[in-house]
């Protein structure tokens, strides 16, 4: 009886943890998107006011950003500094593919990040600003969606986890 009881509790705890983990992907995406917005804002400011060349700029932004997002920038600047002759666009989408998967960003967010690489560094300041603002606008929209999804899903998945745990426990009892 006691073993059954302990076993049920373990199942309930595990299931609610699973629900929590699943709910967490929504929370962390919202956080990352807001951090990404901050990083993009920094990128825009640096380009307007100091016209820092991209390799150095990416290092600066990378250091100032939160690690998950910053890592992408730092990795990119490391590759640029090697001067291997890769174009920015090509290199950036590779980095976003490999490093972006490690973050909690969704595919549609990574797609936006890749779009950033299409024009970054290839035009004058005015057009750079327009381009970055456009991407920021899109990121912001994703952010709003992420908040709505978070509000809707976090509670849902947490409770779903808990209830599923109870359900399994009751069935097995």
């Amino acid at each position, binding site marked *: 009886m006691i073993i059954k009881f302990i076993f049920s509790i373990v199942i309930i705890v595990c299931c609610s943890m699973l629900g929590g983990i699943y709910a967490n992907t929504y929370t962390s995406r919202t956080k990352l998107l807001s951090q990404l917005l901050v990083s993009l804002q920094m990128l825009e400011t640096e*380009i307007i006011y100091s*016209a*820092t*060349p*991209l*390799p150095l*700029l990416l290092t600066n932004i990378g250091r100032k950003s939160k690690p998950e997002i910053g890592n992408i920038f730092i990795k990119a600047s490391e590759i*640029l500094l090697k*001067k291997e*002759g*890769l*174009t*920015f666009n090509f290199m950036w989408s590779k980095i976003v593919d490999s490093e972006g998967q490690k973050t909690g960003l969704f595919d549609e967010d990574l797609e936006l990040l890749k779009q950033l690489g299409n024009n970054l*560094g*290839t*035009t*004058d*300041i005015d057009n*750079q600003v327009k381009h970055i603002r456009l991407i920021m606008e899109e990121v912001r929209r994703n952010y709003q969606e992420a908040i709505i999804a978070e509000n809707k899903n976090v509670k849902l998945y947490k409770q779903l986890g808990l209830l599923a745990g109870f359900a399994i426990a009751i069935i097995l009892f």
Partner: protein
Amino acid sequence: MKKVVNDIFVKKIDESQIPLQQVEESLCPEIRGVIKHLPVSFKNGLEEIRMRVNQPLMVYGNDCDYFVGSAGQLLLEHANGIIINKKNIDNTLQFISNYSIYAVEEELKRGYITIKGGHRIGITGKIISDSKGIKTMKDFSGLNIRISREKKGAAKLIIPYIYEAGEFLNTLIISPPQCGKTTLLRDIIRNISNGNKLLGLKGLKVGVVDERSELGASCQGIPQLDLGIRTDLLDTCPKAEGMMMLIRAMSPQVIATDEIGKDSDSVAIEEALKAGIKLITTVHGKSIEDLYGKKVIGDIVKSKIFKRIIILSNRNEVGTIEAIYEGEDFKNLINSPIRNKVVN
């Protein structure tokens, strides 16, 4: 012992390849591969790499231009030459501008970018202008990559003439275009700045106003060519303003500029002379008589401010020193023209 000799030899070879390595790094991968495989003997004399959209890649060196085959072979006919496309130019420009076109807007307005090593890259494309003048350039169509090889020693024979009793004299260099005027001025600046122990000359603080970035070939403000240890350089600065800035801020003993001639320049020159600063500058022309017709510089020469006037030509070869005149009574100080081989 043998190993040491070997090391020196290896180092020497490396150094001669540095200019080309820097240039290769700024080419797009396809063109980089081709230029890498050019014959070594030609590479050492390579002066220009030219890329024009939808036209064959061309290289210029040893007074001759060639088309280039896909394996790096030099061709006289363009039939088998590599054709440059728009992507090649755009990608090359990415590397030249260090992935940041927005950071080189000022340079684009002037039509060239100087990269590390002092190599200058001329750019053509579509110009966007407004009422204030040229705004920027886009839709790039052509690149001319000029490889810079610093030649030192051009001023060696002149230095004894431009000092008197250990003191530097105001000097003017008169030369037609393409006669090594800037190279000579650069070498004189380096010599004045470093001083010369053998001739008992003390190094002087030199302020350089480099309006067209030719003297120092600066890349992001840092001179890429050696202008000496006591030299302060204002890059892409208008001459008159620059001279005043230097006088006020850097307390130079000598001010050097290229191609003087505007009205505002004479005010700055007066100001410099009042402050007891010596001058060295250049002007386009063939002889002293040529200058009398020019307003500003003619007046300056007539007022005998310049104590030495050097005339260059390319009569025998580039950089020949035709005459060195004494500024008071225009007496020639050399008997026959000096061939100055180092000048490029």
